[in-house]
């Protein structure tokens, strides 16, 4: 007999017993990750290897031959099925009106249940066409700080929300300040002192465009807003038009102004839906 497999089985079951005890001690002594886990692992794997070794010791690799049943439909069964179908036609099928009415009534019953499905969520009523930005909304950082529109470091990304609406998803905005001379004319018309603001929601799949990079390597300095999810890149100097990756549309720009205290405010809401769009929002 295969004494090696026998010894392996004995050793495995002993390890399994020890493993369970180790796990119990691990739990009792608050070693709940490694000691508990490895104890349980040893117990389970020990049982498993023990059983397989036991099977190997018994040398059960037998070659039993079993005949397959034929799965085909016999001519007799074929005839029986036909007979049942005929019977159905002759009984239920005798009144076609009842067949149709019963079928339509089942469909009607199902249709009656469609209503409650509608309660799962409200009907869209144009929420996607507007955000919390209003003319004169002050730009504030997530901890509520307003932005001084007259100064500030160039080439740094700040995430801002409208005052009173911090954390509202569709109103998140990326704000960067660049040298005003670099801005494309149309982009510049919505900017103030080199500050430009864009919706932070990627037009591709809706992630937050959280990265701003400046590539100083010659010949040109390249500035890009990048979405970390799918690597869409946008040009902040030119209306955040897409310059790489899967995003098909530019990020909507938020028109900026200054309030009487010199802080940045919006002068209007975005002029189109932010983020990914539905089929009828082209």
């Amino acid at each position, binding site marked *: 007999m295969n004494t090696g497999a026998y010894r392996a089985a004995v050793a495995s079951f002993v390890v399994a017993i020890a493993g369970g005890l180790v796990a119990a001690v691990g739990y009792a002594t608050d070693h709940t990750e490694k000691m508990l886990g490895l104890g*349980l692992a040893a117990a389970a794997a020990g049982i498993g290897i023990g059983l397989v070794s036991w*099977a190997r010791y018994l040398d059960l690799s037998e070659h039993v031959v079993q005949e397959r049943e034929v*799965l*085909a439909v016999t001519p007799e069964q074929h005839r029986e099925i036909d007979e049942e179908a005929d019977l159905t036609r002759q009984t239920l099928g005798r009144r076609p009106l009842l067949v149709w009415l019963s079928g339509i009534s089942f469909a009607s019953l199902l249709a009656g249940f469609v209503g409650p499905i509608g309660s799962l969520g409200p009907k869209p009523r144009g929420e996607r066409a507007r955000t919390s930005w209003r003319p004169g909304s002050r730009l504030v950082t997530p901890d509520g700080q307003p932005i001084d529109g007259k100064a500030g470091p160039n080439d740094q990304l700040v995430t801002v929300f409208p005052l009173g609406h911090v954390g509202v998803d569709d109103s998140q905005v990326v704000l960067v300040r660049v040298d005003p001379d670099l801005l494309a004319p149309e982009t510049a018309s919505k900017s103030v002192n080199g500050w430009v603001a864009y919706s932070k929601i990627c037009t591709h*799949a809706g992630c937050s465009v*959280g990265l701003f990079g400046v590539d100083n390597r010659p010949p040109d300095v390249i500035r890009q807003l990048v979405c970390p999810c799918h690597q869409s890149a946008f040009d902040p100097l030119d209306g955040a038009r897409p310059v790489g990756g899967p995003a098909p549309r530019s990020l909507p720009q938020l028109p900026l102004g200054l309030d009487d205290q010199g802080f940045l405010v919006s002068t209007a809401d975005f002029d189109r839906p932010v983020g990914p769009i539905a089929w009828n929002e082209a």
Partner: protein
Amino acid sequence: MTERRGAVQRYVEHVLGRVGGGSAVGKALRKVFPTHFSFLWGELALYSFLLLLITGTYLTFFYEGSQTEIVYAGSYDPLRGVRVSAAYDSVLRLSFDVKGGLLIRQMHHWAALVFVGAIALHLARIFFTGAFRRPRDINWVVGVTLLLLSLAAGFTGYSLPDDLLSGTGLRITNAIILAIPFVGERLTYLLFGGEWPGGDIIGRLYPVHILFIPAAIVGLLGVHLGLVWRQKHTQFPGPGRTERNVVGEAVWPAFALKSVGLMFVVIGVITALGALFEVNAVWLYGPYDAAGATSYSQPDWYIGFLEGSVRLFPPWETRVFGFVINNLVYSGIAVTGVVFGGLLLTPWIDRRLTGDHGVHHLLYRPRDEPGRTASGAAAIAFVGVLFLGGAQDIIAGTLDVPIRTVTHLLQAAALLGPPATWFATYRICRSLAARPGADGSERTETIVRDAGGGYRTAAITVTTIGAAEPAPPADEPDGEGGP
């Protein structure tokens, strides 16, 4: 009664004496299962699913499926005082404040990764050996449905902690659904309870994850295994093995000992993974935050191909009559549809292309069916390139190459890789098939008489230990059981 009988015997007889079916029990215990290492993947999936049910049940005792905002006050210092959802809070609690909770949570996550992986390997085995052909085409459909359900289970489970990474995944899902023509916007409102982020999605994914999907998996698994039991297992050709029999081990005790042994080994390995390797450390990602997103954010591996598809697809939008077909319709929906539609229809596509309508219980070696094997390899190449695309930022960062370059290379690979793989695989199969087998068996031309009475040559493996009868070739219907 002179003989003393054991408790189990007496108990079994008690039950059988009341419900009947005594002969079925004996028959079941003597049922034959062929053995081959590749037949174990399905069992591996089954046993990791069992572990998922057990660990998952434990987790439900602590998890709370709610997006209500609260201030975290648990024992993980860096997040104390941060506003988080009740769901995220409960995951941190069960990770840090429930004794042994983290271990069970990590086991659950690891088991999910192993579960889907085992299903993928099982699927590959079934395809590359021809076990999807008639009469098992019906079970192929059940199996692919189970794969879809397991992906749904994985994705919903991944989303439940409501951390930054999974919240971003839900954000992308919302965008993909929004892009569906006609119904997209309404559908997102129904699913999420309003405009993103809504307030209902976590609470809704919870019953879907712990009730609907597992119930569907259990039900279909019953059908899947019932069909295997009824149709009996396939087997590789070999001495004494024909289309009309099954050669292997009886269920009791040989097969049962080894299979139950495998179950415990699987549980042991997953427990060790959970104990040693941190997985989905949601406390490092932080709670979901509208304006937050991180670099190098990858989903669990089985969603990787979809992530890659969404990353690699060019920024194309189609405008028709003032309406727009977003590129997510192609990258998120069409590509997924093609991959899984192709999988579901594989038996029918195969029948159309090969003209093989026959009933098969004997498997083929992948090399003996170069066309089929090459097609499978091409499909894997396509999904594989998409999978790499899901990590294109990591590849670019690691190799210090611009992301744009990596993206363009992978886009080219997605188009050219599958045909190249097809031709390479086809040639490799042809050259392998011409060579003698590793076990010293020779490949010879053998004359076979088929069911119709005709004669033809067939390439089969004849082993040196006296083959009882040549197996019918796998590529022709043998007439038995067929129409």
